């Protein structure tokens, strides 16, 4: 097989909230469908397994120019990634991501948050951002920021009871996401305030 095809260019990683995607520019060949194959190499492969590369089956001979590599980036180490183009019997050289990718660099967004005043009960419902996430929720009586309280929420699967409110007072809440595996937090969400008894709630 001859390597007439140009190697894929503009190879980059899009990583947000611990979901990682490899993307590249399409290789254009008149009248032919170009397909792509992706491989990864972890630090272990570089140091202990003769710099071997491991193919990602879901991204083998596919037409798309994006590959979800989340499942394979499952350790907080430096990974190499590469992609190759195929058209008929022809294929390109490997195009390799410039520099390593480590999931510690993923960008973390503040969680969507719904604050509910259920009678005297201050409740919060958090966006399910995936298994890697836990949350730090801060809440306080409006105007009493110095007496802020904190609750760590390990799973976003259910509504969380924060406090029992005093009638007629406004309570404010904000939250940030935390990923233990990379020991990093998002910025805080916008603050949302509700009033005990008849307060309303809306998704931010």
């Amino acid at each position, binding site marked *: 097989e001859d390597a007439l095809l140009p190697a894929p260019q503009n190879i980059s990683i899009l990583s947000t909230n611990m979901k990682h995607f490899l993307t590249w520019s399409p290789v254009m060949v008149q009248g032919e469908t170009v397909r792509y194959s992706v491989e990864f190499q*972890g*630090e*272990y*492969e570089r140091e202990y397994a003769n710099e071997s590369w491991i193919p990602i*089956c879901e991204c083998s001979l596919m037409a798309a120019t994006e590959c979800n590599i989340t499942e394979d980036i499952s350790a907080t180490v430096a990974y190499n990634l590469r992609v190759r183009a195929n058209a008929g019997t022809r294929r390109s050289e490997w195009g390799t991501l410039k520099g390593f990718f480590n999931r510690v660099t993923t960008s973390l967004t503040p969680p969507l948050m719904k604050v509910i005043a259920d009678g005297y009960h201050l409740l919060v419902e958090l966006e399910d951002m995936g*298994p890697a996430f836990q949350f730090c929720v801060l809440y306080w009586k409006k105007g009493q920021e110095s007496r802020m309280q904190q609750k760590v929420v390990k*799973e976003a699967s259910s509504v969380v009871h924060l406090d029992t409110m005093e009638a007629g007072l406004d309570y404010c809440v904000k939250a940030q996401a935390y990923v*233990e595996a990379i020991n990093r937090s998002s910025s805080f969400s916008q603050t949302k305030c509700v009033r005990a008894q008849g307060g309303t709630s809306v998704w931010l």
Partner: protein
Amino acid sequence: TVGNKIFHFGPCRVSMSMTEIRSGFNTIKANIQARDPIRTLSILSYPHSLHKVKSSDRCCVSHQLFNFYVDKVFRHCRTEDPYINRKISSIANSFLSIRRNFQQCQEQKNCVCDQESLEKLKQVLENYEGLNVTAAAMKALGELDILLDWME
């Protein structure tokens, strides 16, 4: 969360993504154990179970076993199945990352083995080296849940 567990060895703290490792292992466990013809032998549990290790030695024994898997085992576990290889890579890279945490403990002198534990580790190596390397590596990989259970 992803089941990150924090192991405290005295003042030393080691974070491990246990659920990630276990889920990776569980998807390949049956396949790997099916490749182990010698079911009567154990590498980690012969002659004594890991549960006999004193709690003061848990850090050192854990560290040395992670070294054992990273340095000796995973490299001989390449299979003809790309999916299995992907999962082994995930576990191996997680072990590499965790081992780095252990090294910090060792530098703080919180991760020391006594003679009895050193004997235990020596026995594990003897069990391993008493077999053909690929068979030994597959057997050791198949026993990963013994290590994970003991650690948890």
